């Protein structure tokens, strides 16, 4: 082919159509044959390609990021694997400088994932703690109730014990009085005012002291404004030996009254609180001679 013909061929525009992929298979084969034979054709094609490539670069449009993700999914290529693998071709220096960035991203991702796990663990721990606290609170309530009921029982037993001690004191005294020759026991019987009442008065023959014993006493209860008064009848005249309350107010089973040198009888009347100078005879409760 002459130089003129070659120039005409180049200028026909067929090479541009070749680069644009706008030729029939037969025409394409022809162009490739020409290119392999004439360096001018080859160079012209290369120049057209460069221009088209540049033109495409200038008019680049960024596709959305998920196209890449979908593409790699579609081809079944694992992206993580790709990042870890080294390039088989000689890598350009920029690969090495960019690699730490990728690792850093992975580290951050791992950090975030770890923090997520930690958050889940914290929530689980919180739930368990609340549950444990609830159970403990219930147990504590039960314990409080138990303590209260035990306390109540303790008070009840303490009451029983003090009552028993009170009775025991009285009873042992009664036993001693009976054995003793020093003490005289005077039985006081119920009178018209209260026929079923009775009590005992103990009179020491030597020091003349007088004792009464709540355990050895059966008198009706007095109201708040009245109490009992013990009298000794000395030659027909009543002498007060002191007042005493009902057995419900007594702290000790035994109560020491005033001493009396001599007496023919003892009697008890109901008097206003604090006692009277003279006995109220219609409220004579019990009486007994020595």
């Amino acid at each position, binding site marked *: 082919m002459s130089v003129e013909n070659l120039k005409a061929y180049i200028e026909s525009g067929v090479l541009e159509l070749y680069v644009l992929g706008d030729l029939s298979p037969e025409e394409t084969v022809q162009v490739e044959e020409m290119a392999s034979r004439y360096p001018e054709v080859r160079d012209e094609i290369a120049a*057209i390609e460069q*221009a088209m490539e540049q033109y495409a670069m200038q008019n*680049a*449009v*960024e596709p*959305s990021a998920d196209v890449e993700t979908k593409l790699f999914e579609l081809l079944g290529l694992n992206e993580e*694997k*790709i990042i870890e693998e080294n390039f088989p071709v000689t890598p*350009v220096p920029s690969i090495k400088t*960019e690699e730490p960035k990728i690792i850093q991203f992975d580290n951050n991702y791992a950090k975030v994932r770890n923090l997520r796990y930690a958050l889940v663990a914290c929530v689980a721990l919180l739930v368990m703690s609340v549950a444990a606290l609830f159970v403990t609170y219930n147990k504590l309530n039960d314990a409080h109730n138990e303590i209260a009921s035990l306390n109540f029982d303790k008070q009840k037993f303490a009451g029983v014990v003090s009552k028993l001690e009170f009775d025991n004191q009285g009873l042992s005294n009664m036993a001693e009085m009976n054995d003793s020759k020093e003490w005289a026991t005077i039985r006081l019987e119920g009178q018209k005012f209260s026929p079923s009442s009775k009590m005992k008065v103990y009179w020491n023959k030597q020091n003349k002291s007088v004792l009464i014993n709540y355990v050895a006493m059966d008198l009706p209860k007095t109201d708040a404004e009245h109490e009992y008064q013990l009298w000794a009848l000395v030659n027909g005249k009543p002498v007060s030996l002191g007042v005493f309350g009902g057995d419900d107010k007594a702290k000790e089973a035994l109560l020491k009254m005033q001493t009396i040198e001599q007496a023919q009888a003892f009697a008890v009347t109901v008097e206003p609180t604090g006692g009277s100078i003279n006995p109220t005879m219609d409220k004579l409760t019990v009486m007994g001679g020595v």
Partner: protein
Amino acid sequence: MSALKKLTLTEPELVLALQSKDPAILKTLYSMYSSSLYGVISRIITHTELAEDVLQETFVKIWQSASHYDNTKGRLFTWMMNIARNLSIDKLRSKDFKNSLKNQDIENNVSFVDEQNKVTFNPDVLGVKQLVENLKPDLQAVLDLVYYKGFTHVEAAEKLELPLGTVKTRIRLAIIELRRNFN
């Protein structure tokens, strides 16, 4: 992705890795060429979703038919660009595309138009773009049809009511104009 964006390999390196089916090279190839190929596709197919489908199909085809590429017959980019252009034109003429146009509602169209305007330019060469836009109108019209609209030169001749030879000449003149600007 931006980290990988700056990765560049020479064409022989790319071709070698591509033909040995190294998965890493697909990532490099994608970061190097996805936006310029998408630029070509999205000028032909203005519907974003379909254009992105075609971009994906383009890379699948590049990956699967890498062994068919013959570097004695032209540059790798020319080969890839023609795959993109052919798939775009096929899509444009498919039933799929015609249906999707009917289904577009007004709301989608608004964002769709916006997205079409999101063209990324390399700031270093903005001046070049300016020169390309200053192509003579009759050259620009032909280039638009064959490059952006996916027309063959025969179709362009019919569309512009010009003789086939004139269309071919104008394509050549337009590309020479581009070459002059880029060199």
